């Protein structure tokens, strides 16, 4: 796979290193001379000095034959422009962008960026995963604005332990879409019975996640 990475923050550096180790062909476009030199010392000839929002630089990087372009400049607006330029001018089949402001996610999806990674969301998810007693984890924002996928682990003292899903009243537009038990993942039906330590993956409107959480874990 040929991957072009634009902007090389620390995550960009580690990403390129891992991709190279995985046998992929990688070019990293970096406009900062110091970072470019560092990259060249560490990774060899994969680094290209230039502005990744300039058509000429993108052409030099061979973007038109890239399988994926990853925008990691650290500025949401710039990542959007790079994704749209590479998609529309160079016909890159897959574009991926890292964003900081979660509210920018819908416009990235709307204009056709293929994969949007929300760094704030990721940090929040790992934070929530690591904090005991707050077992609601954001998995991702859905393409439908305002809807998200969350995962809730059911504490032993929850009200709903031993109940069937059909007996549980969820907020409107919230759905349990996957049930992960010790024995494995199952597609839940109304008759599925909730047990302690089950992991329920649910789709829910962003504003209702607290209500959903309270219903699923309430005592």
């Amino acid at each position: 796979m040929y991957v072009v990475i634009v902007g090389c923050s620390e995550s960009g550096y580690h990403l390129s290193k891992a991709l190279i180790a995985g046998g992929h062909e990688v070019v990293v476009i970096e406009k900062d001379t110091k970072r470019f030199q560092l990259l060249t010392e560490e990774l060899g000839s994969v680094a290209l000095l230039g502005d990744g929002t300039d058509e000429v630089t993108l052409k030099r990087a061979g973007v038109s034959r890239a399988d994926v372009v990853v925008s990691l400049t650290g500025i949401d607006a710039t990542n959007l422009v790079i994704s749209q330029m590479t998609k529309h001018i160079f016909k890159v089949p897959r574009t991926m962008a890292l964003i900081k402001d979660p509210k920018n996610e819908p416009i990235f999806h709307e204009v056709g960026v293929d994969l949007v990674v929300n760094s704030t969301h990721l940090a929040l998810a790992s934070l929530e995963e690591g904090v005991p007693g707050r077992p609601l984890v954001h998995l991702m924002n859905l393409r439908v604005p305002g809807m998200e996928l969350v995962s809730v682990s059911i504490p032993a003292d929850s009200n709903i332990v031993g109940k069937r899903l059909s007996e549980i009243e969820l907020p409107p537009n919230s759905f349990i879409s996957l049930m992960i038990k010790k024995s494995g993942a199952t597609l839940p039906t109304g008759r599925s019975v909730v047990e302690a330590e089950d992991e329920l993956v649910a789709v829910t409107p962003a504003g209702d996640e607290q209500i959903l959480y309270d219903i699923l874990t309430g005592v």
Partner: protein
Amino acid sequence: MRVLIYGCNRLTTSLVPDLTGEGIEITVLGAERDCLESVATHPGVRVVLTAEPMMQDYLQEGGINHSDVFLAMSSDDHQNILVAQIAKHIYNVPKVVCHLGNPQLQVLYAALGLDVVGYSFGILQDVRQAIEG
């Protein structure tokens, strides 16, 4: 008519007196305090001081939900592209105009359906028109 302008600079200060008039409500979003104070002296003009990390909240505060016209006029092409597309595709503002200085971006985003304005954009067309007579 409600007009929301993103960016406060020399372009905005020339634009605002030209747009003000009866029934026109103008809101200007910008990070430059002096510039905002100067446009706020015109009748019917409201200003909102912004800081970048919460841009989408400012767009809402500026009334993007019920704006008839959105003008992305800042001097940062990339931010203009971001907010203009948010106005057009997320809030469905009926008329969105985007100022771009970079000719490559002008061509791309005009092709992608934005109403693009820009100094060099005009120049390219003027030169072509002059050649073609």
